[in-house]
């Protein structure tokens, strides 16, 4: 049962909008809606992927964050140089918790921060010479790196440096790919354009350049696309695919390597988890190499089972049987988890505000635990995301696009959910209000949440948060 009727929810949206000046109200009203599963296309009711209004507190990131932080960053055996001032890379360093195996600083570089550390003179005289020097320095210090990507920060675009030319020369000099990525933070309206730019540069500089390392493909090769291995997510997904008989050739890009990426054009199907950040490359591989792609969802046993079966549909009976075996194998585990946690979580209401795929993908996992999602929204979703979202939701669920901190607070104080799942920018506000909160971008220092193993951890974490006695003892500091 939802707390609000459709009319009440509409009324709540209207009330929240009242504080805005007329123009802002008109703009923001297009980003808030009440879901109605009857509508086939969520995008016809909601506007998304628009520039945030000045003065409105948005939680969005920048294109650099989308490229360096999300898509490129996890490729572990390449060095991703944050080209520009030191802050952009340093303050986001290792924050996404993309796990990987390897010797950091020797053959993997995931948690390190490489930056050209622009100073005043680099802004005035240009940073190209410095970049060229850095490329050589990196090669000397880290000879086992497989390549370098140059992730431009805002100033590089503003002063008009020619990083493409430097990268071309660098490639010749060090004999490894040096990829210039024009992901300056000012491009686009959110991190989403950064994903796109990163996809395009991977396509142009790595994928289509081909690789002939004698890799022999098998009829069961698949690639995991759009899984960033946050807290080990890709690993807990990978074992399920392997158990059903498939061979995972590449992980994009969590715990991924350059060689894996180059081999991807040889797989039979691309399995796409985060549609938002990697649908571009999947569509490209479909058009160019004829590799089909499908979206899947490894959050919660219901969706996992459905996804495993859907994946198996693309293969022969051996794999189909394998999928059933995997589902049967984990069934007792799922039942044990449900028996333990459903009584503790039944009927609890959740509000989400995250990015990428989670506003819709995790809904099933909460429902498996007997919980209900009463509000959800994307920081940087597009039309096609909202089309995919409304199907997953119940009647009268609030949907908010690029919600401002003010709007979210208002919604929360009216709906009074039992749990909020959003990002670090929201976390401490709500915790101080005494509302159970989990940081659901990087699993609040926990994870993995994908797959059956992840479900066990997810259930435990949610229970630990929702039923923690500490919340009742909290009093917001501004209320004393």
């Amino acid at each position, binding site marked *: 049962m939802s707390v609000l009727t459709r009319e009440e929810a509409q009324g709540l949206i209207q009330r929240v909008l009242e504080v805005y000046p007329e123009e802002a109200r008109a703009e923001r009203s297009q980003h808030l809606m009440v879901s109605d599963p009857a509508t086939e296309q969520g995008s016809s009711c909601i506007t998304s992927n628009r520039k945030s209004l000045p003065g409105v507190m948005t939680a969005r990131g920048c294109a650099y964050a989308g490229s360096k932080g999300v898509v490129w960053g996890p490729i572990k055996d390449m060095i991703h140089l944050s080209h520009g001032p030191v802050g952009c890379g340093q303050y986001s360093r290792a924050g996404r918790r993309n796990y990987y195996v390897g010797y950091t600083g020797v053959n993997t570089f995931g948690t390190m921060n490489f930056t050209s550390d622009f100073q005043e003179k680099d802004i005035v005289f240009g940073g190209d010479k410095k970049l060229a020097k850095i490329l050589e320095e990196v090669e000397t210090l880290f000879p086992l790196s497989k390549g370098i990507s140059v992730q431009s920060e805002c100033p590089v675009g503003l002063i008009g440096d020619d990083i493409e030319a430097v990268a071309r020369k660098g490639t010749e000099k060090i004999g490894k790919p040096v990829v210039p990525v024009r992901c300056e933070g000012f491009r686009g309206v959110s991190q989403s354009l950064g994903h796109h730019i990163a996809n395009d540069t991977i396509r142009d500089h790595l994928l289509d350049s081909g690789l002939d390392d004698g890799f022999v493909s098998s009829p069961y090769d698949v690639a995991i696309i759009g899984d960033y291995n946050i807290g080990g997510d890709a690993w807990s997904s990978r074992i399920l695919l392997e158990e059903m008989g498939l061979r995972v050739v590449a992980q994009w890009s969590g715990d991924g390597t350059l060689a894996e990426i180059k081999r991807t054009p040889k797989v039979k199907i691309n399995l796409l988890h985060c549609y938002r950040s990697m649908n571009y490359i999947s*569509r490209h591989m*479909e058009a160019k190499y004829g590799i089909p792609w499908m979206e899947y969802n490894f959050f919660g046993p219901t969706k996992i089972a459905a996804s495993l079966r859907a994946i198996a549909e693309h293969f022969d009976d051996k794999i189909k049987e394998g999928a059933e075996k995997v589902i049967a194998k984990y069934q007792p585990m799922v039942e044990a988890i449900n028996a333990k946690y459903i009584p503790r979580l039944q009927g609890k209401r959740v509000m989400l505000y995250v990015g990428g795929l989670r506003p819709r993908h995790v809904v099933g996992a909460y429902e498996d635990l007997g919980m209900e999602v009463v509000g959800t929204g994307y920081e940087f979703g597009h*039309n096609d995301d909202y089309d995919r979202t409304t199907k997953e939701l119940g009647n009268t669920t609030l949907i908010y696009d690029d919600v401002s901190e003010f709007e979210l607070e208002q919604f929360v104080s009216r709906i009074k959910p039992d749990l909020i799942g959003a990002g670090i920018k929201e976390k401490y506000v709500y915790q101080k209000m005494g509302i159970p909160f989990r940081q659901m971008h990087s699993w609040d220092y926990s994870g993995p949440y994908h797959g059956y193993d992840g479900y066990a951890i997810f259930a435990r974490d949610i229970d630990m948060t929702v039923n923690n006695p500490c919340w009742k003892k909290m009093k917001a500091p501004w209320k004393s």
Partner: protein
Amino acid sequence: MPKVMLRRDSDGLLICYVPKKDLEGKVASLEFDQPGKWGGRMVLDDGTAFHIEPLDAPPVFPAEMRASRG
């Protein structure tokens, strides 16, 4: 003249994707869909209409092509 990408989904339905607009929709109707002639007016399930210069044979999907607003 936006570029559109046509592909078949798992049920064999034709899906049209317009990258510039992040618009993805099922093709509700297509004027010519015969072995000898393919294209013409294409309407998506949300009502958006395009015109594709008719081809002499159906393309191999997935296919990228130019379409005009129609």
